[in-house]
């Protein structure tokens, strides 16, 4: 019986190795689907049972604590993986009678809050049971980023430098564009009943550009573009212009607060590598973007089911491996090494 279990275990390791190689050729998404499919779920359960049986059957694993730790660590990792899988999460939610909230995304604008996330798999809205407010969102660059102007219309999309004076040909049908003025703090004052744009005091900031579009028939149209109201399309303007920063990003940070029943329950500045943990979920800084409503931050909400088991398994496995093999090498050395 013990021989059978050992040979079966050896074969299972070889098969898992081959499956991993096969999965590597599928790409991450297909591999995830493959390793979570029903036959593979049966395989994972069988593999876990085999490991438990081997711990029960082999006396060496009971007498040698480090060997036991290594195998118990593997069992914990597999159990954590099974419990944290989609099927495991779904089953737990149905047993506990709770709504199943799987990995989803929150799109938040500064100053807004939301309790609705959108499921990663199909975009379906999910109620989190708590709301997340974005107090502030910041992007930090390694060096001063250059600003470019993204011009969009039905005729196409172009990107031009934001420096004053230069003229750019968009296309034969769209015509030309010229940056007439640049402002770091645009102020509008009235002169003889007409609005006039001018540079305001440097203590405030309202970066803006005055562009002139010249159509192929020679008709010129002037258009203001504001950094703080990016993507704002003025009625009658044929072009949507969005200033965008270009540079190597060092970090992007969302200052968030979590509310439950209207009361703040958690707060953190979420960065990549530093998520917020609340009520069995990790909330991550995922990405950011800009649309007609301004800049927004995308946060990822991920349930943490099974993670503690997996990490506990890593700790047991690491302790077992380091101590067991250190002893093994030490024993060989004390017996004269292999010179």
């Amino acid at each position, binding site marked *: 019986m013990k021989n059978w279990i*050992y040979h079966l*275990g*050896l074969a299972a*390791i*070889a098969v*898992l*190795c081959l499956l*991993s*190689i096969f*999965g*590597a*050729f599928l*790409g*991450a*998404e297909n*591999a*995830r689907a493959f*390793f979570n499919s029903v036959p593979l779920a049966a395989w994972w359960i069988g593999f876990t049972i085999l490991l438990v049986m081997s711990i029960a059957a082999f006396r060496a694993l009971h007498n040698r604590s480090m060997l036991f730790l290594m195998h118990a660590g593997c069992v914990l990792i597999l159990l954590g*993986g099974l419990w944290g899988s989609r099927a495991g999460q779904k089953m737990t939610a149905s047993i506990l009678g709770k709504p199943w909230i799987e*990995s989803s995304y929150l799109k938040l604008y500064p100053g807004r809050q939301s309790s609705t996330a959108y499921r990663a798999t199909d975009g379906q809205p999910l109620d989190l049971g708590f709301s997340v407010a974005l107090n502030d969102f910041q992007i930090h660059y*390694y060096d001063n980023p250059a600003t470019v102007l993204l011009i969009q219309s039905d005729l196409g999309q172009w990107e031009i430098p934001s420096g004053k004076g230069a003229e750019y040909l968009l296309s034969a049908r769209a015509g030309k564009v010229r940056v007439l003025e640049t402002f770091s703090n645009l102020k509008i004052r009235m002169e003889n009943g007409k609005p006039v744009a001018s540079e305001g005091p440097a203590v405030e900031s309202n970066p803006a550009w005055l562009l002139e579009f010249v159509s192929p028939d020679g008709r010129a149209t002037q258009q203001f573009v504001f950094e703080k109201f990016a993507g704002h399309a003025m009625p009658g303007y044929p072009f949507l212009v969005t200033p965008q920063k270009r540079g*190597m*990003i*060092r*970090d*992007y940070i969302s200052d968030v607060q979590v509310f439950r029943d209207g009361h703040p329950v958690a707060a953190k500045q979420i*960065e*990549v*590598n*530093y*998520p917020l943990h609340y009520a069995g979920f*990790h909330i*991550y800084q995922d990405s950011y973007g800009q649309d007609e409503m301004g800049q927004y931050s995308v946060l*990822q909400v*991920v349930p943490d089911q099974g*993670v503690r088991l*997996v*990490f506990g398994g*890593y700790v047991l*496995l*690491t302790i077992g*491996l*380091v101590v067991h*093999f*250190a002893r*093994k*090498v030490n024993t*060989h*050395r004390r017996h*004269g*090494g*292999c*010179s």
Partner: protein
Amino acid sequence: MQLKYSNEGILIYAMMAVVAVGLMLRVMRKKQASVFAACLACLVGLSAWGLRWITVEHIPMQNMFEVFLTLGVFLLPVGLAARRFTGIDHPSDGLGDFILTLILLFPAGFVFSDAPQKLPPALQSPLFGPHVAVYMLSYVLLAKAALQAGLGLYYHNRSAKPSSGQLSCEDHELSAYLLVCLGFPLLSMGLFLGSVWGKLAWGDWWGWDPKELWSLACWLMYLFYFHWRYLFRQKMPRANCVCVILGLVFIIITLLWVNLSNLFKGMHNYAS
């Protein structure tokens, strides 16, 4: 082929030259002089590595140039430490260290670009250094193990019995086993630290990325080797040696093919 004229590049070439001299001295059986050459090579290599750290302002393990530089620079000191730990003192092991150092420094010196790169947000993790460092250490030890396994196979295939003082296939197989005993816990720690980092950065402790799957295959290969060797001990030295060599083949695939080939698209592409 890309020659490097930066200070790091010149130091890499200097280290390669000292290592080549050390190798020749080793072949000529001038052990003391070769040890001196190894120490000098370590100093030159560590200078290149330190200079690179200052230039890029982060631990130099981000791209392929830095990875091969790290592997090449640390092989000799790690080899020396491994000899102390295991008691392995074959002439072939010392010779192998010089050859492996030259092989590992070659891509850093002539193949990969040394253009400095800034760290993207995901790589600015306290786990970046430990994760890559333990992987590098394990790769060095497992490469040395594969060299011993290769020698084991070579002597196994020779029909003549080794003369007195010469090492047999079993001796090399045992050396390979001891080196894998040192490298495998580090390989495991690299895998686990990567998984913890993945959870903190991307929300998942396992993302089924091609690099992750090849790393798992690599880990499973050595796991298979240990279970196989426990079953057959040294009755099948040839099969044991083949397992260790296959492990290194998987490491090379994980380190090079997955990063450089368009066949495996994934989130580890920044390493290329």
